[in-house]
């Protein structure tokens, strides 16, 4: 799944560690999401969207193949 997490995070001037702390996961989890190595749960995706005050589909895109 494609995501624009790095772009949103940098726009809000947050480090991976700070974003991780805000949504209650480890920094490694944020890193894995940003590198498309891990797809977050719906709950975490909502928390991330809530953190950036945007819609989930602004942050995540299933991509052409739906992965």
């Amino acid at each position, binding site marked *: 799944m494609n995501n624009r997490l790095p772009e949103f995070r940098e726009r809000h001037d947050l480090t991976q560690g700070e974003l991780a702390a805000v949504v*209650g996961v480890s920094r490694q*989890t944020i890193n*894995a999401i940003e590198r498309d190595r891990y797809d977050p749960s719906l709950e975490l995706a909502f928390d991330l969207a809530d953190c950036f005050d945007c819609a989930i589909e602004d942050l995540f895109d299933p991509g052409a193949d739906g992965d």
Partner: protein
Amino acid sequence: MSSTQSTTDGIEDAEAALDRRKRYKRLVYGAMAVGIVGYLVLLGAWNVYGGDMLAVAGVAVYWLGLVVGMGVYYRSPVAIDDERDERIASEAAGLTLTVAAGVLILGGPGMVTLSQTGVYEAPPEFAGAMWGYAALFGVFAVAMGYAERKFA
């Protein structure tokens, strides 16, 4: 209070919560490590000096460390693992079961058949391992039933 100050406070609170999780995680693994190392040290001392109380104390230290570690893991006020940690553990458990299933599927019937025909007698350790794997899948079946009821 300005929004910047509020955001900074929010991040600091969140980081404090994450630090708390890390402390509990260290406590869990620290208690388990003390239990295991204590067991090995006391067992080593028992081998050198004798005295069954040393061996018994080793087992007690091991149990205590593991029970404290698991107690903190399951009863801590903060979640020790996040969702990615749980996914990793779940995948690792699935892989382990796949390997165990492969060994049991190939080894179990082969062991019984070869033993019955007298062609090959597997060592008792192998038979023990097969029974252990079979018991593991018995537990897995019960766990699957429990988990399915949770999501039904």
